[in-house]
């Protein structure tokens, strides 16, 4: 892995409730994203993966911890400094197309990002817009159309083009393919990989879909109840998972034509109330390997193989 582009240490975000209690949605996350990686953040609903993404770019404030991007801390920036970081570190929402103004043509929406973030003259902005539009597979003559005149899939492409026009370093993609049919999903994934290569991007790919993550990510981090419980190279995580939660998660994914989950998956019960996280290891109530030690000692990520870490006493 090359030098870390994004470094996260002890990051936490708590949602406070009216009654004074707090949901520890992100609870002490350590993470390093190397330049050129596609890092998948996987986990089930409520594990904090989206909150992590939003805390990273500062949409949500961090209660604890630090985020360093290209070596410099990016928390509590304002004005120009924040804008400079944002043009290189971009967040792409699930439905990127929904971010388009319905009353603006696609050309104007694409131009706006460049007006705000760059000092390019009009002709160069125009060239940049056409170049990124071509990169996402759309034609220049679609610039004069309004969002409702193109399909939902094309809207997503425009949303992506709008982000790419700024030539960012790192994209945080929040569930970019959820809610899509598999054939459309394949189109978007192909496009993302092509753009990743063309622009030399680094991607943080937040997803609940393990099959998708396996197919495009170079490295994977598995989250459970606000913590990263295992991280490693994609092949290592999928062929030799070490944390019992990762094992159970993988065992629950249907493999058309392969083994049947309904015969083999073993994880029973549901994740505990995030307001009432178990002491020690937060997975212990559902874990078949749990020992008394797990109730008292909170395991931290420890290396098990090169680049492969798991937070489990018995992994």
């Amino acid at each position: 892995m090359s030098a870390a582009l994004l470094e996260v240490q002890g990051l936490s975000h708590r949602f406070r409730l009216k009654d004074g209690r707090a949901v520890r949605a992100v609870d002490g996350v350590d993470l390093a994203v190397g330049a050129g990686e596609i890092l998948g953040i996987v986990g089930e609903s409520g594990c904090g993966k989206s909150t992590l993404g939003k805390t990273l770019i500062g949409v949500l404030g961090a209660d604890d911890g630090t985020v360093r991007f290209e070596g410099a801390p990016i928390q509590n920036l304002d004005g120009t400094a924040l804008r400079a970081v944002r043009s290189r570190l971009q967040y792409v929402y699930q439905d990127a197309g929904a971010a388009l103004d319905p009353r603006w043509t696609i050309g104007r929406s694409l131009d706006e990002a460049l007006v705000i973030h760059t000092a390019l003259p009009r002709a160069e902005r125009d060239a940049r817009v056409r170049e990124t539009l071509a990169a996402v597979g759309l034609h220049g003559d679609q610039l004069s159309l309004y969002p409702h005149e193109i399909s939902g899939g094309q809207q997503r492409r425009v949303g992506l083009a709008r982000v790419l026009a700024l030539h960012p370093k790192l994209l945080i993609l929040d569930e970019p393919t959820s809610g899509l049919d598999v054939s459309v999903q394949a189109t978007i994934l192909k496009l993302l990989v092509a753009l990743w290569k063309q622009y030399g991007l680094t991607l943080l790919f937040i997803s609940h879909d393990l099959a998708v993550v396996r197919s495009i990510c170079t490295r994977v981090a598995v989250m459970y109840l606000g913590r990263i419980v295992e991280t490693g190279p994609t092949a290592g995580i999928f062929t030799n998972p070490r944390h019992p939660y990762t094992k159970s998660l993988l065992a629950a994914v249907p493999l058309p034509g392969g083994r049947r989950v309904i015969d083999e998956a073993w994880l029973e019960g549901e994740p505990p109330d995030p307001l009432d996280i178990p002491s020690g290891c937060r997975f212990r109530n559902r874990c078949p390997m749990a020992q008394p030690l797990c109730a008292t000692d909170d395991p931290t990520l420890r290396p098990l193989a090169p680049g492969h870490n798991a937070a489990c006493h018995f992994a």
Partner: protein
Amino acid sequence: MTELLAVRDLIVNYHSERGIVRALDGVSLAIGKGEVVGLVGESGCGKSTLARAILGVLPVPASEVRAGAIAFGGDNLLTLASAEIARRIRGRRITFIPQDPYGSLNPLFTIGQQMLDLMHWKSPRAAAAGRSAWPAVLSRYPSARRAQDRAAILDMLGAVQIPNPEQALAKLPHELSGGQRQRIVIAMALLPQPELIIADEPTTALDVTIQAQILRLLHREVKRRQVSMLFTTHDLGTAWEICDRVVVMYAGQDVEAAPTPAFFAAPRHPYTSKLLESLPRTDGVAQDIPGEIPSLIAPPQGCRFHPRCYFATTECTITRPPVSGGAHVVRCYHPLGASTGVAA
């Protein structure tokens, strides 16, 4: 296997401001007794329209059934009076599991109240008691029957693995998790002892570990009771998990039907084969299907997949291919594996 339900050449149109939407274009499908059939297709392919047509809940007057028949136990559900379907069939012999249980449970009533209401009208005991002379809302719920129904509900909650069934009955829907609510609506679909359950993407909204639990539960319970099930899904993985047979739809047409193992081992329709190739792979990025799903207002003539099909010839653009094959049915002029297998 004896046939329980047979849909034949069903044509359904919707009227919209932009024109007539040709949602189902001569769809046929059969479900055997005790069989779990997966109805697979991408959004807008007509799977929910077909499910609604079987349940007799197509929107009126926005939809129009142009042709076809739905045979179920000696009745044609398309010609039967809607009051008759409501009284004898829907909710009793054919029940429904929705995608979003939160949307079908009343947020203001306890789970117990809602389940007892169901039993009041739709339990086998209610059927045995016959029709009351009173208007439905005024008819009594005899306490002996009520007690028996309550016991049956508690039994069923045990079967769907709800912890502390007694306590669950006193809860409101929002006090349960998504997985628990899905277990409740599965229990409600099983309680009337139906012959057929229509399950509309029942695990789409669930996390993968909960999905595995729910699929296992659903499979065990329908097989144990020999209930047939039509399971609509856009997810080939879940179809693989619990279906005996798979029927694939594309843009309002049925294109292939086969036993699950044969289907996944050797799909015969070009669309199906492309759909399987578009699943995420372990060795690199999946292949997509060039082009987009056509508008159903002006769908392509003939086989609706022909504009995106590598094998399409002139005949594909004129008339829809007839059914061919025995147990593995395909509607295509140029099915895959035709030279080695059944004559096309």
